[in-house]
């Protein structure tokens, strides 16, 4: 990588360290069964947040991140290609922070339970969620089990909002790694 982008990244990381120190005090108080959030590597924030929020690295296992960053030319239907050096740096950071999803209780019944079971079986067999998606991970469906069921139905057929991968449609502070249920709003399209 060039000196120039390094310099920019160093400047950015100084700012980020400040911001994340302020954030983590808030996160601690609210951490019940929440996702383990880490301050984002500035390079990751820069390269992986143009088309969706920069997802927390703890949300997927290391193998999933490896496949994702090494296949950016065919990335969920779009070309998100990057140069090799950047890929290496991202891979190193992502895999070191991977696999910190909360162990979720098994949903007792209903739509959440069905999705949970299907994805859990896949994970047990392969060690990763289908398509290496957070939104096809069993923990994701476990954690959302108490969501109002009208919201669920619409979520499942994915008509009301563009995509459930778009965490910030509901989690207003998702881009800061804060998924607290106190910062959730129902998007207008989902309001009954």
């Amino acid at each position, binding site marked *: 990588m060039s000196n120039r982008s390094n310099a920019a990244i160093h400047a950015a990381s100084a700012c980020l360290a400040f911001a994340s120190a302020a954030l983590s005090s808030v996160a601690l108080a609210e951490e019940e069964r929440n996702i383990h959030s880490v301050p984002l590597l500035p390079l990751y924030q820069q390269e992986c947040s143009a*088309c*969706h929020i920069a997802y927390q690295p703890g949300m997927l296992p290391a193998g999933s991140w490896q496949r994702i960053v090494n296949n950016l030319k065919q990335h969920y239907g779009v*070309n998100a290609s990057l140069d090799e050096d950047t890929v290496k740096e991202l891979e190193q950071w992502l895999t070191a922070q991977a696999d910190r999803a909360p162990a979720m209780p098994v949903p007792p019944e209903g739509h959440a339970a069905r999705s949970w079971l299907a994805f859990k079986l896949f994970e047990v067999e392969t060690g990763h969620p289908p398509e290496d998606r957070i939104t096809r991970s069993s923990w994701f469906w476990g954690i959302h089990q108490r969501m109002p069921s009208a919201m669920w139905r619409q979520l499942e057929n994915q008509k009301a909002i563009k995509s459930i991968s778009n965490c910030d449609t509901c989690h207003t502070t998702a881009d800061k790694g804060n998924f607290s249920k106190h910062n959730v709003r129902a998007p207008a399209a989902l309001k009954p």
Partner: protein
Amino acid sequence: MSIFPSPSVTRLLQVLALALVAAAPCVHAETSEQILDQYRTQAGTAPDPSRGQQFFTSKHDHEWSCSSCHGDKPVQTGKHVVTGKSIGPLAPAFNQERFTNTAKVEKWFRRNCNDVVGRECTPAEKADVISWLLTLK
């Protein structure tokens, strides 16, 4: 006293000069006109804004056009066609950050042209598009 600086001062000046040269890329941002010029030179033909508009707003045997994410007239916030994430305006008059970094511009042309046209865009196509975007005021 000699009018020439002492060796240590000379050394200091050399270091300062070097530092300035090294720092230059940090403060130097390109302008959209300079980036357009690079493509114009590579293309060897004059860019045509109306051809750029045509290219931008049409489909090219693929699912999306450039407008699918950036809007027909990219002076406003666009919306990613898959994720729904908002995308700042592409026209430089409405977004100062656009077309100020060749590497960034090249990265996005490479990705988006592959998604929309199924290949990289030619320098002439890039110059046409930028020349059109520069007419949007």
